[in-house]
């Protein structure tokens, strides 16, 4: 009865017209528009990350073929404390591991086709340009004229601010024994390190490689309180370090190519979170009843969504995610490390990483989709999901456990430990954590997955 026809003409036509006329004033709709204009900037920030996570079905072709380094700088510390690593060879011709490892690495760098330009420096009170021949001579024959010792923050400051601006990767080879001028300054070592690098490039990443070598010479401990120096050292191997500094992207590639095969330990700071080629393999290593929901029409195709038909604790479903980790530093390619650290994040307790295996000859030659991957992560699902759930297979950037073992608070008796190493690396972590949405802030790599009921 009270249909639209009953509404008076005035209300239906004249009022909206009046509203249109009044729209020139500062009205509620303007306020709303302004709010709309403001809100996207607030909410958009997490959005690109999400979009990047969810919408990348096609695994990107590995960029291994296009890796190139426009410039690599090598800095070798040649102060008196390094003399024990590079003793002048006597008649017995004993060489240290340092000499073998470093000269081998230098030669590998010199020969590498991917590096366009190399520069070599000895670190005295300032970096002195050297040639490959002279530097490798120094490593082999020993330091003839030791330079005055330079503090670690000073070296870092110089390298980070003067030798990285042109997109170069810089490698510092040193024992990284940093003794603050006053013993009371020890708690500020992390701040000193962070300050030294703070004004460097925005996308700075640092990879730390710890190696050990025998040592024939005088050892200069960081804490000079008890003993000034330890002559005729050392019965035990002594650590030295190679720090790789540079733009995050290049450091990542440098780690994966030129720092391969080094013995010892490594830690990485500020690397961007990588999206590695990945997919759920529909036929490889499977158990239980599930299928790849986004596989499409091709038989045996891979995808990123797992539809679970049935799963229970007694009869779990297990699926395998293939990953190509060739682009990552060697540490993150170790199956044991991955097994320990890979986690599955999401709103479920019923899906867990069961095991991580490296590719074998059999998988490489299989001709199936598994041939494209270097690692296989088995995920066990012990319950049918009630609804669609987004999961993330992530490798969190935890500080490696070796750092604590290699750290000492008193190095007056030299051993395979470095004074306050953990503080130095804390400084790196503190500085580089917030910068990239990558290592230390969160993850080394992320793989988005979906599980859903059938």
């Amino acid at each position, binding site marked *: 009865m009270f249909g639209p026809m009953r509404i008076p003409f005035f209300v239906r036509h004249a009022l909206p017209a009046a509203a249109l006329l009044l729209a020139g004033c500062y009205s509620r709709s303007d306020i709303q528009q302004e709010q709309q204009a403001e809100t996207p900037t607030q909410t958009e920030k997490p959005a690109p990350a999400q979009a990047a996570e969810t919408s990348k079905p096609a695994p990107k072709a590995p960029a291994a073929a296009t890796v190139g380094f426009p410039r690599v700088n090598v800095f070798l510390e040649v102060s008196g404390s390094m003399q024990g690593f590079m003793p002048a060879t006597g008649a017995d011709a004993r060489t240290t591991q340092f000499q073998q490892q470093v000269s081998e690495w230098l030669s590998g760098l010199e020969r590498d086709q991917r590096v366009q330009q190399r520069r070599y420096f000895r670190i005295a009170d300032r970096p002195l340009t050297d040639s490959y021949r002279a530097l490798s001579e120094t490593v082999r024959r020993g330091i003839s004229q030791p330079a005055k010792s330079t503090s670690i923050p000073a070296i870092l400051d110089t390298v980070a601010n003067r030798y990285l601006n042109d997109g170069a990767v810089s490698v510092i080879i040193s024992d990284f024994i940093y003794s603050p001028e006053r013993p009371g300054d020890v708690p500020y070592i992390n701040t000193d390190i962070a300050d030294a690098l703070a004004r460097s490039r925005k996308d700075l990443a640092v990879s730390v490689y710890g190696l050990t070598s025998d040592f024939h010479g005088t050892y200069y401990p960081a804490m000079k309180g008890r003993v000034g120096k330890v002559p005729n050292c050392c019965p035990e191997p002594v650590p030295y370090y190679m720090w790789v500094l540079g733009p995050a992207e290049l450091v990542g590639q440098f780690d994966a190519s030129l720092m391969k095969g080094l013995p010892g330990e490594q830690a990485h700071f500020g690397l961007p979170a990588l999206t590695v080629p990945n997919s759920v393999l*529909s*036929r490889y290593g*499977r158990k*239980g*009843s*599930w*299928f*790849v*929901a986004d*596989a*499409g*029409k*091709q*038989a*045996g*195709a891979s995808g990123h969504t797992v*539809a679970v*038909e049935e799963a229970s604790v007694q009869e779990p479903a297990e699926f395998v995610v293939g990953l190509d980790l060739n682009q990552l530093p060697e540490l993150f390619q170790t199956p044991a490390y991955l097994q320990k650290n890979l986690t599955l994040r999401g709103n479920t307790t019923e899906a867990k990483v069961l095991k991580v295996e490296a590719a074998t000859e059999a998988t490489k030659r299989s001709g199936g989709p598994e041939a494209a991957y270097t690692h296989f992560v088995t995920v066990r699902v012990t319950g049918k999901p009630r609804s669609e759930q987004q999961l993330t297979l992530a490798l969190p950037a935890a500080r490696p456990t070796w750092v604590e073992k290699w750290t000492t608070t008193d190095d007056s008796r030299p051993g395979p430990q470095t004074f306050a190493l953990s503080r130095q690396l804390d400084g790196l972590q503190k500085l580089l954590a917030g910068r990239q949405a990558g290592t230390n802030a969160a993850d080394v790599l992320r793989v988005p997955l979906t599980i859903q009921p*059938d």
Partner: protein
Amino acid sequence: MKGFFRALYEVIGSPQPSSEVPVYREVIFPNIGLLNLGITLALLVLFYLVINRWMRVATFSRPSHWAIMLLLNVIIAFVIVLAQVNGQNVVSHSYVYWLALLNALYAALFFFLFSLIFRKLSVNASTTPF
């Protein structure tokens, strides 16, 4: 349409092995379903319209002849499942034969149901099968 065929063929449970479910749902079910319907209709047209209306063949209109056509339809329905699955490169499993059997059953059912309509269009066989 996919959903219809999926419902039709999953009355015996979801495809086995489960890794091949997407291929069955996306490709094989619609294919065998449409082929089944098409071949059933073609055989009915042949029996009721071609043979028993336009050609007026007088000796092929009895229920026994209708049963021969039905049997032919059932066999074809069974064979097309095996052929379709073979063509899709799926992991082999005895489920295929259960699916073929089910398709044969549906072929018989469709043939009977559509006969009730088609016999009204026929001249010689308007009372076949009953």
